[in-house]
């Protein structure tokens, strides 16, 4: 490892030594808050070249000696033009002033070309302001809901927490918040995400062409950055809405040196509903809420050293209490993370970031059944599952000259999996179900990638990532017979003993060829492996789903994706369009075997009940976006096909994936009517989800048994919905801002299918038996009002 690093650095330094150039570097910030801007543009007018700021707002550009006119810009900010005479390395920090309301058709110089100029493809970046402009569900602005409006990214439908990128499963998306992995990004089965928009600065999603610095998942990366906190003034921001209240406080600890941000959100649906539930209702005593807490501290020691501490904790809590029945159930689940990052500039062209992370996801069920007569506590049942990671990551960015941006580094993760730990107590008797065994694994990776501007027309990105995964003991493998019934053997692994070892070599490449000033074509290839799987017992994604490591029986998932695209801007870059086609092959996917049940892993391994298979997906994505002006928005349309092949399902014939979707259309728009009023709308249409339904029935021992049709062979009705919202700013000064948001979800009250179930009545043997099909829909038309404030 050391030798590798040394050689790399040496080579890079040698390259740069041959080019006698000077470097201009620095940070680009928001003038008012001092917050760094991610992805801001630096454009050298005379050379028609440029760069963008990285995730920390840092940029570096090496140019030959000379006089330059440099434009710094970012959407929603006034651009700054600076003339410099470059004869030595220069540090240039720039503060941009935001244009809060876009009243005229602003022309942005540098940024406009990013989508066609960059070698990156299949990547979409959304500043939180764009997200906030769209209608919010029940008044809650949501990042996850918004990304699902982009082509190639599918919502699974109401009541499902995952999202699906280009035919990949919900576990194949790497979701990171300030570098820390978030394992379950959903509250209330996906109705809300765990990301409180007030605490978020920016997000970027890669659907393909993933650069080498990202790994560990095979479908996509959603990289979310929290705000750092206002470096200049104290700021309070929040909202009181129909179902939740939010408050964010940020400000300087030491002006221009250190700042903090604290953000909290809690829903109170339970408190609102409870008084209206009658005492006789079976829902009496049930409650549900979720909350989130975000914290960020950052300290700038100098322009060369900076420290960030980010923390998140959030939980969903479902509870049900019945005094009469002596029943008390409490089900909390949620994520926590802590990330410490150190930015260091070795030189103006050599940027380093060191990250330390602890990340955790837990699901727990506590049940207590005891009536007043039970002196000994009655029956108690506790179930735990989850995953915890400790993470160390080192990233370097080296920019020897404007032609090359080289990123390299490595990471190490220690995973602790709690597959399904159950304990029960009946009065004084404790049942140890022998399921407390955790699973442990080491995951390491090194990578290098270079973004190489060969000439004005061609940019090439090449990268490679090498990763290893090692599951270690203590671990007990229960070896099953062919019927999965009897344990014919057990293999016990001692502490630190290797249970399974896997490695992977992952090439990544992409290329851009400019056709003219306004258009380019791009192509990309990526191959990744993923060492952890999400095992879902159900046909939908639930918080009970288990994260399981690769083991002696479970192989890593692998994905290989090819994509090509055509990118073009119109009308002085006010409009941007793209068409992308992709083909993706997936290997070693897992599913539970037919009819597996929770509890199968008691004195057993959950992965003994897995079946394995492959899959593929291909599709065509169209995107048209109006970027600037009073009227903004986009249309995204995806045509795709996704199938799976499992030898144990339908005799190995391909079957449609749960989220196979031929058509997926999203339409978003927002319109700034005047300084006080703005309006927005979202319309979505998607082919119905697939499901498996019984096609026949027969009787055994007096019970009616279902005979199922082919897997996922039934398609439910299409999903479509229109949301609208209107925002009224009733007061806006430099010090105080107050606005009202009125939104309507599902305007025309479409009853979108959530699931179909069958209801039976009567008795077969006397000829009175009847089957009915019922379709359950979740949300009808839902109006909401939220009051937002900022001071």
């Amino acid at each position, binding site marked *: 490892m050391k030798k590798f690093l040394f050689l790399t650095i040496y080579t890079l330094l040698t390259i740069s030594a041959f080019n006698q150039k000077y470097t201009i570097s620095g940070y680009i910030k928001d003038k008012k808050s001092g917050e760094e801007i991610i992805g801001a543009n630096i454009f050298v007018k005379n050379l028609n070249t440029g760069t963008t700021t990285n995730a920390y707002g840092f940029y570096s550009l090496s140019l030959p000696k000379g006089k330059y006119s440099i434009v710094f810009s970012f959407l929603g900010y006034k651009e700054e033009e600076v003339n410099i005479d470059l004869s030595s390395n220069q540090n240039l920090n720039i503060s941009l002033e935001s244009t809060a309301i876009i009243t005229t058709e602003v022309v942005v110089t540098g940024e406009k070309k990013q989508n066609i100029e960059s070698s990156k493809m299949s990547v979409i970046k959304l500043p939180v302001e764009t997200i906030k402009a769209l209608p919010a569900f029940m008044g809650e602005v949501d990042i996850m809901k918004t990304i699902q409006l982009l082509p190639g990214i599918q919502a699974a439908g109401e*009541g499902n927490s995952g999202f699906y990128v280009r035919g990949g499963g919900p576990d194949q998306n790497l979701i990171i918040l300030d570098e820390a992995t978030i394992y379950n990004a959903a509250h209330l089965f996906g109705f809300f995400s765990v990301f409180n928009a007030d605490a978020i600065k920016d997000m970027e999603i890669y659907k393909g062409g993933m650069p080498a610095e990202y790994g560990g998942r095979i479908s996509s990366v959603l990289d979310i950055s929290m705000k750092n906190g206002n470096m200049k003034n104290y700021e309070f921001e929040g909202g009181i809405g129909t179902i939740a209240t939010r408050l964010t406080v940020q400000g300087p600890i030491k002006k221009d040196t250190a700042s903090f941000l604290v953000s909290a959100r809690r829903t109170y649906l339970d408190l609102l509903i409870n008084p209206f539930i009658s005492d006789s209702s079976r*829902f009496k005593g049930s409650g549900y809420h979720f909350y989130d807490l975000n914290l960020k501290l950052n300290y700038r020691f100098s322009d060369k050293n900076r420290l960030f501490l980010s923390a998140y904790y959030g939980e969903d809590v*479902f509870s049900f209490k019945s005094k009469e029945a002596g029943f008390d*159930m409490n089900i909390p689940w949620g994520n926590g993370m802590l990330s410490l990052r150190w930015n260091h500039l070795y030189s103006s062209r050599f940027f380093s970031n060191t990250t330390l992370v602890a990340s955790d996801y837990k699901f727990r*069920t506590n049940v207590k059944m005891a009536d007043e007569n039970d002196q000994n506590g009655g029956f108690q*049942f506790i179930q735990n599952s989850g995953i915890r990671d400790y993470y160390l990551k080192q990233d370097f960015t080296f920019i020897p000259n404007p032609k090359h941006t080289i990123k390299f580094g490595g990471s190490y993760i220690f995973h602790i999996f709690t597959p399904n730990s159950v304990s*029960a107590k009946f009065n004084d008797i404790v049942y140890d179900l022998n399921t407390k065994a955790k699973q442990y694994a080491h995951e390491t990776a090194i990578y290098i990638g270079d973004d190489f501007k060969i000439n004005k027309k061609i940019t090439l990105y090449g990268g490679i990532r090498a990763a290893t995964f090692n599951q270690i003991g203590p671990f007990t493998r229960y070896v099953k*017979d062919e*019927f999965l*019934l*009897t344990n*014919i053997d057990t293999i016990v692994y001692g502490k630190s003993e290797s249970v399974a070892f896997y490695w992977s070599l992952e090439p990544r490449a992409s290329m851009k060829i400019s056709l003219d000033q306004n258009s380019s074509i791009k192509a990309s290839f990526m191959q990744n492996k993923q060492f952890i799987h999400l095992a879902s*017992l159900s*046909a939908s994604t639930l918080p009970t789903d288990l994260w399981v490591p690769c083991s002696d029986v479970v192989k890593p998932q692998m994905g290989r994706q090819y994509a090509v695209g055509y990118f073009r801007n119109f009308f002085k870059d006010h409009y941007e369009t793209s068409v992308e086609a992709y083909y993706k092959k997936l290997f070693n996917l897992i*599913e*539970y075997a*037919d*009819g*597996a*049940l*929770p*509890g199968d892993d*008691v*004195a*057993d391994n959950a992965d003994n009940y897995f079946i394995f298979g492959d899959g593929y997906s291909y599709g065509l994505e169209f995107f048209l976006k109006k970027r600037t002006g009073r009227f903004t928005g986009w249309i995204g349309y995806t045509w795709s096909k996704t199938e799976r092949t499992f030898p144990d399902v339908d005799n190995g014939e391909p079957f449609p994936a749960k989220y196979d979707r031929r058509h997926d259309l999203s339409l978003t728009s927002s319109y700034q009517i005047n300084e006080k009023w703005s309006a927005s709308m979202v319309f979505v249409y998607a082919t119905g989800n697939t499901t*498996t*339904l*019984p*096609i*026949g*029935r*027969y*009787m*055994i*021992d*007096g019970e009616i*048994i279902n*005979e*199922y*049709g082919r897997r996922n*062979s*039934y398609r439910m009705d299409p999903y479509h919905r229109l949301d609208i919202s209107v925002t009224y700013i009733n007061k806006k000064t430099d010090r105080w801002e107050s606005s009202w948001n009125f939104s309507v979800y599902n305007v025309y009250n479409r*009853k979108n299918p959530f*699931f*179909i179930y069958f*209801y039976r*009545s*009567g*008795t*077969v*043997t006397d*000829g009175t038996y009847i089957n009915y*099909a*019922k379709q*359950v*829909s*979740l*949300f*009808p038309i*839902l109006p909401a009002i939220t009051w937002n404030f900022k001071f």
Partner: protein
Amino acid sequence: MKRLLNFSTLTLIISFLILIGGCEKDISVDLPRADEKITVEAFIEPDSFAVVFITKNASYFDPVDTIAVANSIIKGNQALVIVDDGNNIDTLIPAIFPRWPYHGYKGTKIKGQENGIYNLKVFWNNHEYFATTSIPKIIPIDSIKFDKFSFNDSLGFFNIFWKDPIEIGNYYSVTVRNHKRHQWFYRPFFGIHILDDKIDNNSTMFYGPISQGYERNAYYNDFMDNLENIEFVDILAYRIGDTISIKLSTMDKMSFQFWSSWYRNLITAGNPFANPASVKSNIQGDPANGYWIGYGSYISKIHIVSKDSIEVLP
């Protein structure tokens, strides 16, 4: 217990979601027709002749009236059913039994024996079906305990105990017959009637509480529809004066796999979040559902003399 909890958790969560705004409506779904198949329910026990019931499946939304039900039963000379033990052949004869579908077939020559291997052949409508099973070693019930209710000591449930053999991989089922009410052995109302020694191998195993058995198709749906009007304990518990037979049967792995997949199908049926579970039939040949099982059955017959004494009858 755990299965019950998981299901109720899900039910509650879903109920809650619907409570906060969801709705449901009747829809018509256009399903393909199921291929015609027969369902075989066949077993053989020590010292008894083989018993075979044959019925037909139906497409999911096929109307169910008395004619359809009658037509679904294969009886009389409609099918030819043969059992052999490797040496002898027994052509089963049509017979009437005290449980649905009432019409079935019964052996007259070969009685089951511990460790015996038996082949079944069924010929129906130009189709041919076959299966093989064996009767495992019989394991006796060691003791029976009558558990009185704290609130009414003339009523109670039973618990039974037996010693599991040293080798792992023993599979059991428990069925009961109340001589006052039933002419057949039924699964107890509460709980899953099969179990294995995965956790308790080579130790004293127990099954309980054993409630009264139920003939599901006759009463079950009515019973479930009228839960509120029925005195639970009256129907489910045993009372003083009852004479009960408790049957502990051993079975082979394939048979246990059949029953566990059968339970999985029942538990997951109607649960839209569960993966569908198909029942693993051991009937081969043309496509068919059902089972051919050899049970190593041990029966304990008991009489509840008083609240403190039970008598084991020969």
